[in-house]
């Protein structure tokens, strides 16, 4: 319940924050929403030398849509902002489905999507969603900015490819080229539980045909899983019972669950396949249900 000592800095600009991270030399941690980091400090699972609190950085709390449909989520945009967003509810079904299922309502008031991605918890919800959507983050370091696809962000459990002096400043969902569909299903035993299994699916359809598909899996591997083959099975035609069944099977194969107190590996694999089927059959225009 009592964190160990650390140096605390609350910079007023991104540049200052990056300079502090650089100075920290790998022993500094970024504090955004803090809803994962502070519990880890309390349990002393993490004892960084320095905390760089970015909550005072101006202009990072946005959720906006560019003219072309690109969605941009600033590093200080809270889960609750996403949950309440009418914009997501209207245009981005996968994100809209996931937002209310992240943690619990009070944690959502504080936690951030970008922070969740950087925390790289294999049981985190947003990474699957962003992988399904083909999203990326923008990271800024001493040498400037770079884009990192969320699919490439995680190196392993709680590890990312971010350099120690890089700060993720926004997450970006590319503009859809067709009609966006999809959803997020999460098996949790009670509100605030980690996902036993979570499945995020984002598809784009044009003229009845799937032109883009992404499937991300939560809680069934050492990192969030990008079920590329499963998503590929959906491309090039309408959603049918056959393509859905194929995607479900491939997604279950892509999962690398382990048995634990949340369920056996076999069970988790089955849930992946069930959820893929359920999400895809509920997509408007899906022909899956008829089968």
């Amino acid at each position: 319940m009592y964190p160990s000592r650390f140096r605390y800095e609350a910079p007023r600009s991104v540049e200052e924050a990056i300079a502090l991270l650089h100075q920290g030399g790998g022993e500094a941690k970024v504090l955004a929403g803090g809803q994962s980091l502070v519990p880890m400090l309390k349990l002393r699972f993490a004892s960084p030398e320095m905390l760089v609190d970015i909550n005072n950085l101006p202009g990072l709390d946005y959720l906006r849509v560019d003219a072309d449909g690109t969605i941009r989520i600033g590093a200080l945009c809270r889960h609750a902002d996403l949950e309440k967003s009418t914009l997501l509810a209207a245009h981005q079904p996968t994100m809209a489905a996931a937002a209310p299922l992240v943690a619990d309502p009070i944690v959502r008031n504080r936690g951030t999507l970008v922070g969740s991605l950087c925390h790289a918890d294999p049981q985190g919800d947003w990474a699957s969603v962003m992988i399904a959507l083909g999203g990326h983050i923008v990271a800024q370091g001493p040498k400037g900015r770079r884009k990192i696809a969320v699919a490439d962000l995680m190196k392993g459990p709680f590890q990312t490819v971010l350099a120690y002096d890089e700060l993720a400043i926004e997450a970006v969902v590319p503009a859809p080229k067709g009609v966006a569909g999809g959803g997020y299903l999460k098996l949790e035993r009670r509100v605030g539980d980690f996902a036993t299994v979570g499945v995020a699916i984002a598809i784009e359809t044009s003229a009845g045909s799937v032109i883009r598909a992404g499937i991300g899996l939560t809680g069934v591997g050492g990192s969030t899983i990008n079920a590329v083959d499963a998503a590929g099975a959906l491309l090039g035609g309408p959603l049918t019972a056959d393509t859905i069944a194929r995607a479900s099977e491939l997604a279950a194969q892509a999962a690398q669950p382990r048995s634990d107190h949340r369920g056996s590996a076999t069970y988790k694999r089955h849930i992946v396949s069930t959820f893929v089927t359920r999400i895809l059959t509920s997509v408007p225009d899906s022909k899956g249900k008829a089968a």
Partner: protein
Amino acid sequence: MQLDEIKIGGLGASRRRVEDNRFIRGKGNYVDDIVLPGMLHMEILRSPLAHARIKSIDTTKAWAIPGVRLVMTGETMASRNLAWMPTLSYDTQAVLATDKVRFQGQEVACVIADDPYIAKDACEAIVVEYEPLPVIVNPQQALAPGAPLIRDDKENQLDNVVFDWAVGDKDGTDRAFAAADVVSKLELHYPRSHPSPLESCGSIADFDRATSKLTVYMTTQAPHIIRAAVALVAELPEHMIRIISPDLGGGFGNKVPVYPGYVASILASILLERPVKWIEDKTGNLISTGFARDIYLHGEMALRKDGKILGVRMHTDSDHGAFFSDAQPSKFKIGLMHSTFACYDIPAAHLTARGVYTNKAPGGVAYRCSFRVTEAMFFQERMVQAAADDLGIDQAEFRRINFVRDDDFPHRTAFGFLTDSGQYGKCLDVGLEAIGYQDFLRQKAEAAKQGRLLGIGISTMTEPLGAGNSREYDILGIKMFDSAELRVHMTGKAILRTGAKSQGQGHETTWAQIVAHELGIPADDVTVEEGDTDTAPFGMGTYASRSTPVAGAAVAMVSRKIRAKARKLAAHLLEVSEEDIEWELGRFYVRSSPDRGVTIQECAMAAYSNVPDGLEPGLENNAYYDPPNLTWPFACYIATVEVDPGTGVWDVLNMVAVDDCGVRINPMIVEGQIMGGLTEAYAMASMQFITFDAEGNCVGSNFMDYLLPTAWETPGFELHEVVTPCPHHPIGAKGIGECATVGGPAAFVNAVMDAIKGIGVRNIDMPLLPDRVYEALTERHDVSGAPPVKMDDR
């Protein structure tokens, strides 16, 4: 004009709670809220291993941290003969480990510092060298030949068996089975659970060298027992010990035992001569303090084709962890397990019970339960449903065939308990009507045609609440009576103190209602105090639903003593003889002239200002109540569920509760107790359990893994009542705080089992996690929940 009892907050009034006035303002006074001058803070270093020899402990670095005042290890405790302490079950428990650690989370060292952050820093700086030993996490491993001996500290302990015990009529039961048409068998595990009040345990020990008095603020449900225990363990004179249990943030049985942290904080205060506060974190609470349940059943029922139960045979193996510290006051080794089947008319029954040591936390507390009654009733109702299914008889009808009849009281159960009252059939009827039983069965059949799985589960039971009677119930020899002391002031206001200790049950509200009922003093004029051993009369505390049956009875009895004295004062004031006086609520009057009377308040004034010759002044008294029997409430819980065959997830459609707890003092509070209990029942059936992996690591050591339901998952409840007054309780009340936790789980489990009936699965162990239900559905076999849980490495 006679007083309106409801208006003065008497019996039956849903009086708003007195204690809420402080709680809703944030002015509760919990242990951690108390700050004493010069107070220091203690943190505990716990063992990361489940079974290991301690090779060395190096505290040098901890001592060197600025702000550290004291570092204590088992050696420190041993120097004061405090390394071990007695448990409530005549065993011993390590305070701080000296030889080896026997469960993950065991207390190894303590640091006392200027603030808790520093104390935690210093705990981390202590270096302990362990030599790991083989680990035992279930009875099967404990009983295996060649199993490592956990309690090598005890002379003559050559294996891991704590006890081997039997009760009932073995020969009669054997005969019943020989005569049976059908024998129905069931194997179950009631998983380890934890009461987990939101407030963890803690204490502030304050030893005053000048007066030699030790005051301890403590999260305890039984302050007087603690005082006795401290006197025995710390060898301090009892009058120099004052235990104060302030507001408690829930207890549910967790706050009955004596924990090492309490003892360590006391010694620290004695050594440092300063107040020492210890507040346990949640992990510490979940991994080291009193667990509940963790017991395996092999059950058999001898049945006649027409549905009559001829006999019951049960064997239990209970896992007590590393120290046998069950908090239970009966002379029976496995508590009141043999109260099982008390609501059914069973000719013969036999129970054998074996307890074992394992490398898990000790406890065996009665979690919202009267000493293993929760397990007893769960086993009973699961066996009853299986038996009904085996016979092909409707589960409601099967119960009706076997219920003890209304005209058969008092009834001696097969195991020897005496039940005294109830209307079992009526309660079941009310429940079936409320849930729409026949309609639901039709709905279920209809749904089945579309592949939907609906189920209905019933649980009916009577349970023994309110230990005890002193013939059979004691804790370390102290008899299980309870007490009340009532002082009526001259203006007719009063203060009442009891030996019980509220932890959310609302005693400050309901005890005053009993006084109002007995004396006509408005409840608002009665202050109720509990929890301070220097002021409250000796009592055994609050657990096992004993407050109303025992302390509540004492409140009625002391009020009657006051009334008897007031009658003498009334006779004096009215200048008639006592025999000519009649009582109505709040007033004595002359029988022949009812207009001539005096109120209880006028009598109170006279007690201090106008006392007749020969009568002592004052109007105060106390009562110690030793109940003639336990109270036997009855309950019928019925749940309907739908199981999702694709995921194994199940949802509660409806939940109906019919409770007969006799006369209800405050119906609002009674209903609150029932709904709280039903929620814990749902929690245990659906998600709440503590398990262990093969290395003895506790899985469920915080609220991320030990799941308590939120408002979202918790179903709504529909409550009904039947009233059969308790024949021996002064106001006809029976215990109620635990009925729903005890009887509820089987209703949910039976409902899920009913939904998947017909595929050859007899049992899924609680909690009915989606993966377990799915496994049963698809693999068509029973699903065990016994530890160790399989945890793949990544």
